[in-house]
C-alpha cells in the first residue's frame, strides 16, 4: 500500500465510524422510535460481530504449519480462564497476551 492508499484506508475507517455515530441524530427525532428491524439488529448484531472479530484475529493461524496454533489456543485459554476467575477485563487481556508471548518464545 502506498501513502495515498493508506490515507484513503484511514479516512474510510474514520468516515464509517462518524457515519455510524452521527446517523441516528440526523435521522431519528427524540420522540420517534427506530424501526423494529433496526432495533432487533441492535440487540442481535453486537455479539455476532465480536464472535466474528475473534475469528478475524486468528485468520492467519495455520493448524497444519508452524506452531499449529498452539500459542494462540493457549493464549485464548489463559484469557478465558482469567476472565472467568477475576472478571477484570484488563487483567484477562494482560494474562492472555503474556501467556501467548511466553509460549511463542518457547516455540521460536
Amino acid at each position, binding site marked *: 500500500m502506498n501513502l495515498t492508499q493508506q490515507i484513503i484506508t484511514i479516512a474510510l475507517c474514520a468516515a464509517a465510524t462518524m457515519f455510524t*455515530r452521527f446517523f441516528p441524530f440526523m435521522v431519528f427525532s427524540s420522540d420517534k422510535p427506530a424501526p423494529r428491524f433496526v432495533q432487533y439488529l441492535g440487540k442481535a448484531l453486537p*455479539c455476532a460481530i465480536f464472535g466474528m472479530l475473534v475469528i478475524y484475529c486468528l485468520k492467519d493461524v495455520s493448524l497444519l504449519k508452524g506452531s499449529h496454533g498452539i500459542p494462540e489456543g493457549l493464549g485464548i485459554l489463559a484469557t478465558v480462564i482469567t476472565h472467568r476467575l477475576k472478571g477484570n477485563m484488563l487483567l484477562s487481556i494482560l494474562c492472555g497476551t503474556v501467556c501467548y508471548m511466553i509460549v511463542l518464545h518457547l516455540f521460536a
Partner: protein
Amino acid sequence: MMKTKALKTAFPYTIPIMTSFLVLGLAYGIYMNASGFSFVYPMVTAAVIFGGSLEFVTGKMLLSPFSPVQTLVVALMIQIRHLFYGISMLDRYKDVGRKKSFLIFGMCDETFSINYTADIPEDVDKGWFYFFVTLLNYLYWVAGATLGGIIGDHLPFDTTGIDFVMTAMFTVIFMEQLRKEKKPDTGLIGLGCAALCLMLFGADHFMIPTMIAILAVLTFFKKPIERRNAYQ
C-alpha cells in the same frame, strides 16, 4: 465555575477508563510500531477514528493489499453498534448546544456507557459533564496510542507477540457480550459464520461473505432469536 464543577464531577467517572485507555492505547501504539509504522500512524488513527477495535483492524488493513470496498464494509460492520448508542442518546444530547457535534464524534463504547448511566447531580451542568467525560476519554486514548508508538521498540524487552492483545481484547469483549445475552445464539452465529467462511473463502476474502451470512442468518431466525433471548 460551571465548567470547573462539571470537570470535577466528571473526572472520577473516567478513572477506570484512564487506566484501560492508557494501557490499551499504549499496547495499540506498540502494536503499530511493531508492525513497522511510525508513531504518526497510531496518533492519527486514534485521533480521527477514535474507536479502539476498528483501529487495531485498521492496522491490519494497512498491512494488507489496498481494498477500499472491504475496508468501508468492515469498518461499518465493526462500528454499526454506534447506531444504537446514538438512538439511546437522542434525548440526553438534545439540549447541549454547540458541544453536541463533539459529543457525538467522541461517542466510543466507554464514553457512551458513562454518559448513558451516570447519575449527574442536579447542580452540575449535564452538557459540560458529558463534554468532559468525552474529552478526557479522548485524550487518554490519543495520548496512550501516541506514547506507545513513540516508545515502541525502545522498550527494554522483546515485544514479539504483543499483537495478541487484540485477540485477547476481542475474546474478553465477546465473553462480556455473551454474558449479557440470555442464550449464546447470536455469538455462535458470528463465530460459526466466520469460521465456515474462513474455511471456504480463505484468509483474504472471507470477511464480506461472513458479514452477509451473519445478516442473513439473523434475519432468517429473527423470530426464534427474539423469543429465546426475550428481546422486546
